[in-house]
């Protein structure tokens, strides 16, 4: 892992990301975040409990390594579909509109468990969510992009709204993924185990509703994504052979090294596309893998860009663990609920996922969205 430096390094001028930013003749509209919702299972599982469940005596201090104290887990009461549906309902209740007016429902979930640990590959989960929330007129599809799935859905939603092909898009995900930790607990022996990352996972559902913005509204200012496919085989997940659910094999250090190398120039590129500097960003919400990785990554961004956002990077991984494709929505809802995000604030959502996928969504938040999360009392 490269050491962080205190002086900005020269970033190559690239246009590497597939980027959508300023309106154009062919994409004249902008999209705004109309509502955010999430579901968290009530059951808490501490990192101490997870490590006590490993078959082998590991001597790994996972809490110190990752900063994760606990995560929420389904104990059979939730599955991917119920978490996604719950988040969608929360999102739509805050929005208050008619679900029949939703044009598109996209699921970006990695896991597709229904009825316990049955993975439904067909029919798609998006259709079941749309049906459950009454989005009966919507075009539906699932996409799959590891932990970048929800933000990839947001990227597609933004494109459809910009072109006028859709007015309102619901992007959902439900991750019942903590069961990978149950499986990994049988195999993890040392800190070098490729299944160690599975012990950091938590369950959650996330949903965002995006709609066409008015001229003066807050909006998605820029969104850019790329796949650095030379690293495509650093994190692989499959159905388990001998256990229910799945297993995931991660070369965490190699992913982290690639992320630290690639994220700063790509973030710089996205900021440039939006015509802003890192100092103009109020809140950075990175993918939540570990508190240490987030702080190191942000230090490197600061060194590379020669500046920092107005607030420290948002960390929710300490409470919820890595909830896969839902982390950004879970954290956004958390920050809105805590009153940390104010009208007019600019948020940078930064995806980092197996692939490796790197994506950046820069958006501003308006009073309507903030008010949905302010306690009426």
């Amino acid at each position, binding site marked *: 892992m490269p050491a962080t430096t205190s002086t900005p390094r020269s*970033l190559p001028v690239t246009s590497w990301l597939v980027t959508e930013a300023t309106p154009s003749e062919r994409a004249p509209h902008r999209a705004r975040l109309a509502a955010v919702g999430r579901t968290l299972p009530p059951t808490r599982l501490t990192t101490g409990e997870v490590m006590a469940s490993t078959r082998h005596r590991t001597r790994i201090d996972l809490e110190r390594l990752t900063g994760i104290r606990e995560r929420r887990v389904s104990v059979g009461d939730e599955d991917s579909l119920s978490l996604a549906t719950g988040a969608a309902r929360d999102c739509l209740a805050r929005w208050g509109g008619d679900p029949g007016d939703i044009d598109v429902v996209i699921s970006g979930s990695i*896991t597709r468990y229904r009825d316990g640990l049955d993975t439904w590959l067909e029919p798609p989960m998006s259709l079941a969510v749309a049906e459950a929330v009454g989005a009966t007129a919507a075009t*539906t599809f699932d996409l799959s992009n590891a932990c970048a799935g929800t933000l990839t859905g947001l990227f597609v939603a933004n*494109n459809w709204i910009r072109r006028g092909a859709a007015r309102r898009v619901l992007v959902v995900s439900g991750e019942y993924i903590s069961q990978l930790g149950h499986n990994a607990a049988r195999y993890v022996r040392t800190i070098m185990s490729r299944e160690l990352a599975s012990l950091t996972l938590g369950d959650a559902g996330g949903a965002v509703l995006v709609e066409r913005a008015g001229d003066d509204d807050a909006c998605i200012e820029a969104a850019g994504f790329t796949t650095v496919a030379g690293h495509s085989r650093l994190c692989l997940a499959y159905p388990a052979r001998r256990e229910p659910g799945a297993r995931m094999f991660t070369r965490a250090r190699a992913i982290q090294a690639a992320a630290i190398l690639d994220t700063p120039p790509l973030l710089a590129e996205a900021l440039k596309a939006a015509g802003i500097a890192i100092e103009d960003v109020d809140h950075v919400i990175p993918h939540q893998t570990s508190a240490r990785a987030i702080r190191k990554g942000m230090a490197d961004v600061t060194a590379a860009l020669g500046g920092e956002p107005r607030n420290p990077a948002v960390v929710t991984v300490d409470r919820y663990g890595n909830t896969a494709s839902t982390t950004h929505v879970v954290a956004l809802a958390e920050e809105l609920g805590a009153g940390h995000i104010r009208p007019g604030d600019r948020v940078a959502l930064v995806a980092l996922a197996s692939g490796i996928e790197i994506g950046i969504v820069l958006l501003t938040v308006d009073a309507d969205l903030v008010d949905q999360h302010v306690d009426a009392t």
Partner: protein
Amino acid sequence: MSTRLEAVAAIRGTRRRHRSGLRLANEAAQLALRRAGRRPIEVDLLLNAGLYHDGLLGEPALAAIIQDDIDANREDPSEDAGEDVSPQGTFSFDIANGACGMLTALQVADGFLAAGTIDHALVVASDADPGRRLAPAFPYRPAGAALLCAWDDGPGGLSGIRFASRPVDDGGMRAIVGFEGGRNRLAIEEGPAFLPEAATLAAEVACECVEQRGLAVRDVDLVVASPLRQPFLDDLARLLGVPADRVVRVRGGAETHTAALGLALDAAQHSPAWAAARTVLLVSAGAGLLAGAALLHPHG
């Protein structure tokens, strides 16, 4: 101005030679690029719509691995790759919309092409027995297809993509990986009403698609449809009121899945009727029920 298919490629696997869905996807992708005379680094967006792959990989997106394997901007963006540098990297992800996935991927690709965000998109789909004894009764033959898409300022191309859904019990057909007998197994089940109901929904959305573009079904010269199963294609022709010989058939196509639309397009391009075809109707139906349709004016 619309999305044009620069190249269509189909790979028909044999169970012996093509045990890997990834290999089929890679071969189809490379064949489409060769046919279009494009280099892999020209692919800005790579979408995989295939569902059944080696080991039933859950992450990353198989599209990322295909991008890696066909060498499409796989290097770190911060590296100086020398003179052969693309101005833009490649973004890859999977569409998982059952047998309608290829049409959905075309819709997503069309969106980024229409906005001027990208110049070229590669849509790939393949299925093969996932191996590892995961699918003891895997029903599909190995097949892969790829479509290379570009924006074209001229008339013609792809237009009017739309979808419809009609929730039915268990989606009419379903594919579930469940734990049974001490291991995870993929089971694909289909109810007797699936094909006729899928044909009904497909015909409805196809008619809407045609009418929305100010055309009539009689203006359709060729119907390129999936699934490539005779009862579905017969029902579709009857419900649309088009002669059965206007619907493209592919020998052995009945046992293909997400790549079927690509296989049908490839067969259509090689058919005598293609040269004179002004309006081609693309139709897909799958579990859900889901159905989608689009028009293709291949010659402008």
